Every structure is written in structure tokens, then in C-alpha cells.
């Protein structure tokens, strides 16, 4: 069911009424789930997937449409290109473990153009642009790609408008199909086997610095049209339109926007500037409300942390040297921003990485009273093969259809970074049940974390009075719920004289019938805070496990050394300053395993391997990991 958008005036009036009402448990008709658990269950998902409806997927022979992508998430197989003579894909792929929830997030831009360029009776089918697109010419990719950049970007008059396509109408039709695909795959029975979200990606950039966001809806109540960067030129405009068209415009519509690939943004994705003429506090509050999360890991690399940038004090963190999309040396943006990150150029900012962004949020909170970056953490794949959750290092098929067909293609490809690409990660939530509303609400309250692929179970609570013996107590969750807050929350007002405690309880990935999970090496608390002069600090604490000497034989990919099946620790901040705003998040590391690129190199006969198989800046191993949402502390004078 799709409701039409009400007028903005009417919507604004509704907003005043609507704000006070808590969201209903279910907007959509459905049976309650049998496994509902007030202490929350762990569910795995992928919230960033492109299908054949995305211009940059279709062009590489990807024909997995949203319906097929949702079914892949539930365990059905697909056959990826290249095609054989009968037109069938030649690379079969299926998940060894289905996902629990999934959102297909096709680029909202060009939904109509892709449909028109591939529809023989359409008004644009014979145009040069469409012919080039169907031939997968580099010029077609570049012209569609560059067409997304800049605040003046718009639909091309060569494809949309008079005598061409009625792009809004056609995009609306495609959008209906996306909704139907999500609906058909959503399990509304009490078994709650699969939850699908209706979603899209808003794909704006400025000076080729990435500003992309995934827009995820809580229910089937969604606006009649997705918002593209042609409709909303800036992130702020996207958010105000989501507010008016969804939240204020449609009964039961709720939405969030999740930015990703800060590592591609030259500091621009999280630079704290506000639209001219807007109240800074209001703009920051809108952002905090609609953007509670950030995707810190996906196929285009890691955005958690990087060593060596100015403006963050603390020791170097060896585990930040992880899945970096760009090779050193890199220029530091300092307090400014750069350009052209999406083509691997320009400076790198501390705002390109989670730690710098979280610190900036504390700084903004001190300055204007609102933290626009109170961000929970997720990871996803951003696959362009329509294959959500295909994150295994030992079965990586690339992300761009026939372009990534062979080991050589994947290692040396340029979309975007060959051997530096990653299979991508997963998002985990702790939610009462596996329904749209319950999972969305868990995401919204940030009781969620990301992993670089493995299904490591991690629970984190913070509090002032957490019992020291929690790791000996089977009722850890109930006790921590009663005396603390879960990951993603702000600590309650301080009690006692000491610093806050954090409890971490983690289990290794148990693996599947075809794939072993790796043991855990350590759990760490990462603390960030602002000192009296506003300087940002980071300190990393090993709280469970530690250096265990585990390694990998890179000639066989065999793991060497043991690790932990489970880790648990109660940790108290030893250097707490009650006047300093701070955050604490947890990182859990596996023992090292073989990186996909090493496996691909080994699969190529020795004499034929590309040079980069010997490139020392491409790691042979990977220490897969989980990053949790933070827990925040603010001095009592706040608010």
C-alpha cells in the first residue's frame, strides 16, 4: 500500500501533533513473533545492496533484481555473470547462513533512466547515451557517475523531459516494484524468518567527495517517490524532505538515513557546517534524529580509524591499519576539507573516520548544545551483485558483476581499488524480535554493531553500578539492563565517585556447515574524550584476551595458534574526568585469517600472478572484527 504525500503545510501541522506520540509497535498488519524476547535476540543483516536497478550494477551484466536479491538473503542461490551461451550466469553463489534482515538500496537516481535505456519501446532506447550504456562503455559509466556530482546535478535532458522519458512517473513505477519485492519476501507469520526493509540510496557528492546515504523505512508506509540527489541537492535538504514527506506526511511512515564511506569524503561527509539561514541547533537536532547510525565498513574499505592524522591525541593504534582503500602516503586535510575522494584523490580528514567524527560530535555538543554525531555503528556490503551478506573472504566473487569475474579481474580492477576492496561486512542488532518495527527501533536506539564479515556475538553495557561479578552471572543481561544501559545509549547521571564501568561479553563466530569461524583474540574498549581545552583524545584498552601470537601461513592460508571461544570482562575507566565529555565503544578482534586477495593470488599459477601479489602494502592476512555502537558520557550540567 502506497500513500500519496500530503502537502507540506498540512504535514507541518501534523508534525506538531505527531511528535509526542510514540511509534506504534506495528504499523503493518502482522502476527507477533514467537521468539519475542524482552532481553533482545541477536539478528544479522545487510543494509546496503545494489541490484540490477542500479545503473552501476546493470552496466556490468548484473541482472539480479530486488526480488531476487531478497530471496538470495533468505538462502536461495543466484548465478552471477559472465553469462554462458544460453544467457545463464556462470558463477553460482548462495549464502551458507541466511540473513535475518535486509534492505535493497538501489541508487534512487536513474531508476527511470536505467529502465528506459533497457526498454526497447521507450523514448530514449535509441539514444547514444542508452546505446553506450547497453554496450557498457566506460563513457556511459562516467557520464552517469559524474552526473551525480555537484549541487546543480539534475536529470539529463537527453533522457528525461519533453519527448523523452517522464522520469518521475517511471521512477515511481520502479519504486512500486521495489516495494512489492520487499513485501513478497517479508515473513509476516509468527515464525518471522525474514525481515525486509523498503529502502534506497541517495547518492549525492560534492567535488567528488562522497555524501551518500541509505534511506531505510520502518514499515510499508512510504512516500510515493524516492528522493534522489536531483530532487534534494544537499544532505540537509534530503533530511528536511524525509521529515516532511514521510514522517509528517504519511501516517505510520518512519525513516532513517545512514551515511557511509566517510573514508571517501575528504572530510565533507561530517564537516559540521549548517545551511545558511538555518538555526544551527535545529539543523543539528534534525540530523541527530534522522541519522542515528554510520556505516563504518563495506566493500570500499574501513572508516573506523587511521593513524597519523592531526587533531587527535593518543598513541598509534596498530589495529587501525586495516582495510584501507587508499595506499599511503596521504595528505592530511587538517582543519579543512578536500575534494575528489571518490576517485582516490585529495586529502584525508580525521572526519573521514569514526573516532574523529565522534569527537567532533562532542565538540559540537559543547558548542551548540546538540550532538549531531551521536552515531551508532553498522557495517554492510554495498555489493552491486544483488547478493546481500556474501562476505566470506574464501568465496569472494567481487562486487561488480562480470567486471570482477576472475581472480585477476578482482585483484587488478579499478572499481574502485582492486586488491584493496573488501567483501564487506554485516550489521547486527539486539532486538526483541525479527520484525521490521522491532529491528528498526533497535537500529534507532543504536543497540547495533557492525562486523567486517564474521558473526561475532557482542553484548556491551555501561553503567556506574554494574556488578563486578557480571562475568560469573548467567543473568548478565537482566542484571546489566537493571543497573546500566546497552550499547548505543548515553550513561544516566553519574552516581558514586568513580568512573563508569563497561561490561563486554562476546562469542566467536560459530561458523556454518561449510565454513569454520575463527577464534577470538581480544576485546578492547576505545575511549574518546575532550580535555579542558577542547582537544580530542583516544585511548585503547585491552579488556579481555590480548596478544596470543596467532598467525596464518600465507602459503596455505592455514591458521596457526589458538584463541578464545568466548570473552567476558567488566572494566572500569581508570582515568575518568567528570568534567570531560567522553564515549566508549568496543572492538572485538578475531585471530588473523587469510585475506581474500591472498586466496585469489594463490589461485593463480605462480608465474602468472600480477605484481600486486607481492605488494607489501596489501596485507596477506586480515584480523576480522566487530565494532560496537558507543556509550556516551556528558557532565551533569548538560541539558
Amino acid at each position, binding site marked *: 500500500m502506497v500513500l500519496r504525500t500530503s502537502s507540506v503545510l498540512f504535514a507541518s501541522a501534523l508534525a506538531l501533533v505527531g511528535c509526542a506520540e510514540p511509534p506504534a509497535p506495528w504499523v503493518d498488519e502482522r502476527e507477533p513473533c514467537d521468539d519475542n524476547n524482552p532481553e533482545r535476540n541477536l539478528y544479522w543483516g545487510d543494509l546496503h545492496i545494489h541490484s540490477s536497478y542500479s545503473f552501476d550494477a546493470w552496466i556490468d551484466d548484473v541482472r539480479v533484481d530486488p526480488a531476487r536479491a531478497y530471496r538470495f538473503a533468505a538462502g536461495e542461490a543466484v548465478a552471477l555473470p559472465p553469462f554462458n551461451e544460453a544467457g545463464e550466469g556462470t558463477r553460482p553463489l548462495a549464502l551458507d547462513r541466511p540473513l535475518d534482515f535486509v534492505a535493497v538500496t538501489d541508487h534512487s537516481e536513474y531508476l527511470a533512466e536505467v529502465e528506459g535505456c533497457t526498454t526497447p519501446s521507450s523514448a530514449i532506447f535509441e539514444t547514444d547515451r542508452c546505446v553506450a550504456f547497453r554496450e557498457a562503455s566506460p563513457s556511459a559509466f562516467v557520464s552517469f557517475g559524474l552526473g551525480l556530482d555537484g549541487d546543480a546535478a539534475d536529470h539529463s535532458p537527453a533522457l528525461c523531459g519533453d519527448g523523452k522519458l517522464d522520469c518521475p512517473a517511471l521512477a515511481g513505477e520502479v519504486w512500486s516494484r521495489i516495494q512489492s519485492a520487499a513485501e513478497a519476501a517479508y515473513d509476516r507469520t509468527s515464525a518471522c524468518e525474514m525481515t525486509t526493509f523498503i529502502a534506497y540510496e541517495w547518492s549525492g557528492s560534492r567535488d567528488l567527495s562522497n555524501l551518500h546515504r541509505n534511506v531505510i523505512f520502518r514499515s510499508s508506509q512510504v512516500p510515493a517517490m524516492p528522493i534522489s540527489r536531483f530532487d534534494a541537492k544537499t544532505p540537509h535538504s534530503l533530511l528536511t524532505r524525509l521529515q516532511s514527506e514521510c514522517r509528517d506526511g504519511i501516517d505510520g511512515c518512519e525513516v532513517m538515513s545512514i551515511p557511509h564511506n566517510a573514508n571517501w569524503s575528504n572530510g565533507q561527509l561530517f564537516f559540521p557546517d549548517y545551511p545558511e539561514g538555518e538555526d544551527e541547533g535545529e539543523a543539528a537536532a534534525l540530523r541527530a534524529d534522522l541519522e542515528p547510525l554510520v556505516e563504518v565498513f563495506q566493500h570500499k574499505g574501513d572508516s573506523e580509524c587511521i593513524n597519523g592524522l592531526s587533531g587527535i591525541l593518543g598513541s598509534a593504534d596498530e589495529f587501525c591499519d586495516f582495510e584501507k582503500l587508499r595506499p599511503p602516503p596521504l595528505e592530511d586535510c587538517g582543519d579543512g576539507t578536500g575534494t575528489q575522494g571518490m576517485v582516490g584523490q585529495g586529502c584525508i580528514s580525521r572526519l573521514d573516520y569514526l573516532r574523529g567524527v565522534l569527537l567532533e560530535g562532542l565538540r559540537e555538543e559543547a558548542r551548540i548544545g546538540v550532538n549531531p554525531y551521536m552515531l551508532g555503528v553498522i557495517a554492510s556490503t554495498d555489493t552491486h551483485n544483488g547478493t546481500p551478506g556474501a562476505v566470506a573472504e574464501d568465496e569472494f566473487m567481487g562486487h561488480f558483476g562480470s567486471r570482477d569475474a576472475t581472480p585477476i579481474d578482482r585483484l587488478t580492477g579499478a572499481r574502485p581499488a582492486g586488491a584493496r576492496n573488501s567483501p564487506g561486512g554485516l550489521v547486527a542488532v539486539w532486538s526483541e524480535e525479527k520484525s521490521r518495527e522491532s529491528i528498526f527501533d533497535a537500529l534507532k536506539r543504536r543497540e547495533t554493531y557492525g562486523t567486517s564479515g564474521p558473526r561475532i556475538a557482542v553484548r556491551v553495557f555501561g553503567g556506574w553500578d554494574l556488578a563486578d561479578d557480571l*562475568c560469573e552471572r548467567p543473568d548478565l543481561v537482566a542484571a546489566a539492563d537493571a543497573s546500566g544501559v546497552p550499547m548505543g545509549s548515553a550513561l544516566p547521571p553519574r552516581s558514586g565517585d568513580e568512573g563508569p564501568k563497561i561490561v563486554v561479553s562476546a*562469542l566467536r563466530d560459530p561458523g556454518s556447515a561449510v565454513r569454520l569461524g575463527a577464534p577470538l583474540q581480544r576485546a578492547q574498549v576505545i575511549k574518546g574524550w575532550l580535555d579542558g581545552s577542547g582537544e580530542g583524545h583516544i585511548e585503547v584498552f585491552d579488556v579481555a584476551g590480548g596478544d596470543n601470537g596467532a598467525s596464518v601461513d600465507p602459503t596455505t592460508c592455514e591458521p596457526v595458534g589458538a584463541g578464545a571461544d568466548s570473552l567476558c570482562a567488566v572494566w572500569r575507566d581508570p582515568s575518568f574526568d567528570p568534567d570531560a565529555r567522553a564515549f566508549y565503544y568496543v572492538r572485538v578482534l578475531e585471530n588473523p585469517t587469510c585475506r581474500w586477495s591472498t586466496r585469489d593470488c594463490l589461485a593463480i599459477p605462480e608465474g602468472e600472478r600480477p605484481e600486486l601479489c607481492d605488494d607489501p602494502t596489501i596485507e596477506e592476512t586480515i584480523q576480522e572484527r566487530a565494532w560496537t555502537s558507543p556509550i556516551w558520557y556528558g557532565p551533569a550540567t548538560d541539558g
Partner: protein
Amino acid sequence: MRIRALLREPLLHFAALGGLIFAANAWFGEGAPEGSAVVVDQAWVSGVEAGLGRGLGRAPTTEELAEALRAAVDDELLFREGLALGLDRGDPIVRRRLIQKTRFLHEDRADLEGVSDEKLAAYLAEHRERYVGAARVGLTHAFAATDRHDDPEAKAAELLAELRAGGALEGLGDPFPHGQRIGLRTPADLEALFGQGFAAGLVDVPVGEAALLRSSYGWHVVRVDEREAASLPALSLIRARVERDRAEELRERAAEAGLRRLREGAQIVLELEDEGLRAALEEAL
């Protein structure tokens, strides 16, 4: 609906719609196009004129338009001659595309209109096994972690003894991130939580009874709290899925029917020496 799938299909840039219909007609034996005239009508002129105008950035002159139309007529003549000479048959790409297109034309003949609840209910009943969920188990467990005990199995056995001596399972054992109580789950879900082989160990445990089971993390005293047999969900809850599956099957069947008609109308000569193979192929055809 099928038209849409057809339209979404990749098309060779040189195979314009006119050519496709033309080819399809030839395929279905509905015309003898080699002899027919090439008609340059106003629709064709408008199309060529628009394309030319876009390239030039202005309206073309009469001469330019005539030149472009001559080129288009030449293309059409070459295209027809190529078909007449059977050149399309030697090209694996053209061949593959035509096979796909024709198949889609057949699929499009599926009657997807008027999907009543009765029809869907009948489909659901007919394909019951596809929609029946797995049997599920709900349990409570106490955990003895490998990383906390030298002999976690012995520790779990102690916990089981406590339980059997009248103690409660709740409050026993080590903390487990997923908690002690696990609601109704399928075997696959349980293996995703506890590791391979865990669900198989529960098969023979009666409701209310407890057993010692090994997981990826250590040992567990597991009490089965409830079991739910596999059951068929109400149509209203899975309507969209059933409708999708039924439409897919109808399209598949329409394509099959089309192929049957083609086979029946075609002369297929089997020049085979292997009698076994001949018999098998005759049966298959």
C-alpha cells in the same frame, strides 16, 4: 507483468524493436518478409529526425534528413538480407538473444489476470511443502564455557546434577550473550547460535527434559521447554509470496506449452546410432 521483465532485458544495440518484431514474425511463421516493401512512413521520419536533431543540437535540414533516412533504409535492407541469408544463425550472440526473446513472448501468454483468493488458496494447498515452516524448539540452557573451566563437560554435568536434584536451571552457569532462554527457533537458527550439530542433539529430548550438549563455546545443560510442529501459515500472511510464486510458475508453464507447440509443429530428425539415446530423446521430446 511479463512485458516488464522482457523490457528490462538487455538488448543488443543493433536489434531495434522493429527488427525484433520482424524476427519474431519470421520465427512464428506469420509472414514472408523478404519480398515485402520497405515503407518509409511519417513515424519513421519523426524518429530519425528527433535522433538527428539531438546529435546536431538543431533541427536537421531536408538534405541531412534525407541522408539519414537513406542510411536507415540501407540498414533495414542489410538487416533483411542478413536474415534471409541466415547470417543471424551463425552468430551466437544474436542466436542467444532471439532464443531469450522468443521465450519471453511465450511466457507473456501466461494468464496472470484475476488472481482470486480461491486460486491462490488452491495453489497453496497444491504446494504445501514449500510453505510449511520447519519444526521449532524453545529451550532454556545453562552454559559452561571452555574459556572458564578446565573441564567444561564435567562442569556442565555438575549443573545437570543440580537441576536433577530439584534446582532451577535459571541462574546456573556462565553468562551467555544470547541469554538462557531461547524462544521457538528452527534447527538452522539454533545452529547459527550454538554451532554445528547442536540442533541434532535436541531431536530426541522430550519436552520438559534436559540433556548435556556441546556447542562451539563449551557445554550446556539444555532443557526443552516447548516444541512446535511444522505448520502451514494462513494465506493472508503469505499472500504476496504465493502470488509471486504462482505467477512465476504460470509463466514457466506458458513457455513450456509454447515449446510443446513448436515441437509438435516441427519436423525433428534424429540421425542417431545409439538406440538407447534415440529412445531417451524421443521420450524427452
